[in-house]
């Protein structure tokens, strides 16, 4: 199969490879896919507490070249966005940017899922951080 130049570029020079400490409160981690399907993506965001902006993103992917490129591209796009803006990234945007063929669309879907999972993890952590205070306030009221 022929790969697009952009897929090859991300495969040869993947952006933002690595990991953050997944227990940090300002880090959201999304891990999607399964080894038996041939694709596992781990995508992490680091959010600036004050501004609510994703200041850094990292990924690791087990999968084909298109899966690696989709997640590498996703980390590029995430940086500088607010969490709400990040949720607007659609798999079709990734398909178009990387010119993925139909058999590789699932790679872009997985990348979108990874973004959503990372944000969901981040938000769960934030709620837990806030939750004890709310309970206290409610008791007072």
């Amino acid at each position: 199969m022929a790969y697009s130049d952009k897929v090859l570029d991300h495969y040869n020079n993947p952006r933002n490879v690595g990991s953050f400490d997944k227990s940090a409160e300002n880090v959201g981690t999304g891990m999607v896919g399964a080894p038996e399907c041939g694709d596992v993506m781990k995508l992490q965001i680091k959010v600036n507490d004050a501004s609510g902006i994703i200041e850094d993103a990292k990924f690791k992917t087990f999968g084909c070249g298109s899966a690696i490129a989709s997640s590498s591209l996703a980390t590029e796009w995430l940086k500088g966005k607010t969490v709400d803006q990040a949720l607007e990234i659609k798999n079709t945007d990734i398909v178009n940017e990387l010119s993925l063929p139909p058999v590789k669309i699932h790679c872009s879907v997985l990348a979108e899922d990874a973004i959503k999972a990372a944000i969901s993890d981040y938000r769960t952590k934030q709620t837990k951080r806030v939750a004890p205070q709310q309970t206290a306030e409610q008791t007072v009221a």
Partner: protein
Amino acid sequence: MKTPIYLDNHATTPMDPRVLDAMVPYFTQYFGNSASRNHEFGWIAEQAVDKARKQIADLIGASPREIIFTSGATESDNLAIKGVAEMYAEKGNHIITAATEHKAVLDTCKKLEKNGYRVTYLPVKGDGLIDLDMLRESITDKTILVTIMYANNEIGVLQPVAEIGKICRERGVLFHTDGVQAIGKVPVDVNRDHIDLMSITAHKLYGPKGVGALYVRRKNPRVQLTAQMDGGGHERGMRSGTLNVPGIVGLGEACAICQREMPEETKRLQYLRDKLRNKLESELDEVYLNGSWEHRLPHSLNLSFAYVEGESLLMGINDVAVSSGSACTSATLEPSYVLKALGLGDDIAHSSIRFGIGRFNTEEEIDYVADKLINVVRKLRELSPLYEMAKEGIDLSKVSWVHD
């Protein structure tokens, strides 16, 4: 050294220039129809066919009259299995095969199942070999045919063909073997191995594509077949159609070269294959061999590189032609059914690469491939969340994965 490097010799082999030289005169100069009995053009073609028939028979310990020419191994498999099933329908309707057979055998058996035949698909052990006791137990008084390949096209393991043949002979059941990967690579002898029918193709032994043969035993027992194509009654009535004389000359010459050079060639291929394996295993951790090491073709290697997906691996060695058991490109995302039959997890099956070393590969090429692969596996493992988790001591089989 020229790239790309071809290491996919299980899929097909390049044609040996000596084979081409033998074929060339039979296209324009000696173009006769070998069935033309009343002029010299036909006689010359017939002589060439007879010579090839003997060259093929000699390589497998058969008599020339037991060689039926076909278009290739898929046709040979179809003719053998359907031909026996039809011819011996009154005797029984049961066929035994194995889960790791080539699609030409499996799909032929499935077709027969639709027509009322019963087929047993023997599982294989972790090393890729069938269990002989299970074979014995599967044979019933309705069994007419056992079809088990000589060597597997994906993992290169050699089935215990001589024992299978012996069991079949004792039980009065015909034995067909798809011999395409083994013939010309290891010594095959239809009498020693008790083979009754065997599929052969030219393009896996440095001959041309589009020509093959079926060995059909003539005595003890005399095997009969129902022809699958109607026509002029060529090839003892088993396979009609004007013979592909240049192709047959090529198949014959390819067999003769294999027979002459096999002892030398086997040593050389084995040396290169072992060097490739040793180099990869000494530089990388968690490299797994798929299939038996002991019962294996000399030029064949199938390895899984844990935590790295096969297609991304192929992308990183894009100037090397090999195959992967991963099927990321297929709509089903199912990895190789052969590797799964060995009991491999889907993840390890997705991480597999098949190497098929051939007559024209050099040591320099093998060194280049090994070095390149080591770098790519290292790079992809840096990228792999699975490798990271494994290094943290997480048991990947106990993780509950999030997927549809």
